[in-house]
């Protein structure tokens, strides 16, 4: 542990301030709480919102897991883990079940989380209405007035034009019938995991200076029309070439030597576990 800096890098006042914003976010599920985002030694846009959440929550009794694209060993995950370890010395794990705090980018783990775990998601663009309205002052008002017609219209237009809702990852959802929320760029495959979950989901956007939350047992519904149901990414007829799973989110891998295309689990820790059984 580097002793020239405070435990968990930020000073205690900053950490407390962030935790207060977290409490507000938990109290109003899906609402984006502004906070005084601090600058970190890691790039803005590289997960600093998530890192600030992790740093403000972490203590010596915690066990940390960090994943990126589902993988514990991807460069960015390794880098974040290294930083948190440098200033806290907490034990790290790759096993989802062992972790008390899991920080992630772009995925929710395959193993369902429990009520003593927190999933911290890194968020690049927290505003779900940004795609239809560039100005913050306007989107803030739209949320206040539940004026969500433009985003429904976007769904409808996509349906008319392509016969399908073509939003891919970062699929907007309605939280507790009140706020439309951006679940961060997780695939549609993962969004249903937010609904009525056991764990606490925290979302941190460092550059955009927003925190929001999905507490346990919260109603989270992906936007869809009654006659056009929400549809996840499908991997029909495909399976993981390593563990054989057919019910996980798969990475498509192209072997340039053989021209062959194959698939494997994006959640590397889950994949390993299945194989070891």
């Amino acid at each position, binding site marked *: 542990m580097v002793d020239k800096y*405070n435990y968990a890098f*930020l*000073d205690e*006042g900053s950490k407390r301030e962030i935790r207060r914003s977290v409490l507000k976010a938990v109290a109003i599920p899906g609402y984006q709480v*502004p*906070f*005084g*985002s*601090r*600058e*970190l*030694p890691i*790039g*803005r*846009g*590289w997960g*600093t919102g998530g890192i600030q959440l992790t740093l403000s929550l972490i203590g010596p009794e915690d066990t940390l897991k960090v994943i*990126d*694209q*589902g*993988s514990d*060993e*991807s*460069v*960015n*995950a*390794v*880098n974040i883990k*290294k930083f948190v370890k440098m200033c806290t010395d907490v034990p790290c794990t790759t096993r989802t079940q062992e972790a008390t705090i899991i920080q992630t*980018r*772009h*995925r929710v783990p395959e193993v369902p989380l429990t009520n003593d775990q927190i999933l911290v998601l890194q968020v*690049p663009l927290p505003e779900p209405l940004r795609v239809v309205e*560039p*100005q*913050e*002052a306007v989107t803030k008002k739209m949320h206040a007035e539940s004026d969500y017609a433009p985003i429904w219209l976007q769904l409808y237009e996509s349906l008319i034009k*392509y*016969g*399908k809702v*073509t939003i*891919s*990852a*970062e699929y907007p959802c309605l939280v507790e019938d009140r706020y439309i929320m951006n679940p961060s*760029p*997780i*695939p*549609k*495959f993962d969004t249903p995991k937010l609904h009525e979950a056991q764990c606490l989901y925290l979302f941190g956007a460092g*550059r955009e*200076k927003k925190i929001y939350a999905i507490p346990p047992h919260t109603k989270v519904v992906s936007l869809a029309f009654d006659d056009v149901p929400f549809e996840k*990414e*499908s991997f029909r007829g495909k399976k993981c070439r390593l563990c054989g799973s057919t019910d996980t*989110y*798969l*990475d*498509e*891998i192209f072997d340039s030597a053989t021209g062959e295309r194959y698939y494997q689990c*994006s959640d*590397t820790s889950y994949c390993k576990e299945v194989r070891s059984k």
Partner: protein
Amino acid sequence: MAYVAVSGGEEAIEASIRLLEYYRSGTKKDLDLEVIEEKMSLLVDRVMSEAGLYDKRYAALALKQCEGSTDEAVFLLRAYRSTLKRSYDSLVADTRNMRLARRISAAFKDIPGGQILGATYDYTHRLMNFDLQQEDAPALCRRVQQEVEEQKPVEISPCGRVSDELKIEGLIDRFEPEDEEPFDVTQNLLEFPAPRSARLQTLSRADTGFISGLAYSVLRGFGQVHPTVGELRNGYVEIEVPYLEDPTESLWIGEILLTEVEVFNEADDKDQLKLACGYGAVMGRNENKAIAMAVLDHELNTTGDFPTQNDEFVLLHGDSLEMNGFISHLKLPHYVTFQSKLDAVRKTRRENHG
């Protein structure tokens, strides 16, 4: 699978960091911090200004650490700044009391207090000076010092701004001093419309290139045409903090080098015209940045459809740390989201054409 690979990220990062050391190791000569501070002072000034941290030594250290990249150096200083406790808020520093090093006006030939050309590259010929390839630095230092010592100091008394006169004449609006606590952009999320204190802080810390480009667009026609530099001054301003034992007293903690600019524009005043003023102030000597800031400050006071008249557009996109952080994040793996995109694209193609 390229560089994320499914495993091996840790070793790759360590090797990458060692390679950075290699890039910094091309010569046996050390880059002394004093040399950066004293001979690269405009670069140091720019980094301090964009970082919002006035410390020449640390700015020089940051530049040394990152091969002289301004955005990396700003990044290092900002991150370091996050770890510092804020003990005091300084008292308001009145720049009328600035110890002037340079002061010019493009609006009037004669200004109360006088013009001081000071040091500027404006009137140099930009010819490469090949003699500097082998320079006798100690001799230069001695020669200049001697020249300074031989001169009789001329007293420069503090002086008001050019705009003070125009305010008396009623051509520029006068505002009552406002003692409201300024909005602190380092501790709060900007809200729009942004209070002026937030606007000025954000512009003062903005990336020099970004706000210069925006101000240029204003001059070229995407905005309120051609402003006049009423006054540009730079020099040292004393910073004081309140003395906690006795609130009527204050403590002098040092001085900082600032560049301050006011630009004038014509503006509507019911059925006649008046002058409107834009204000810019930045740390160090960075005149174009200060002018650009003043141009944008004025532009944001006007309403219209140009990007520079939209405070969200101007204030949210010019922070060095934020823009470079988000742009560089594109290099991170996006396998999951791209897979999801591919799925959406393939599905529409299959259903519509297949």
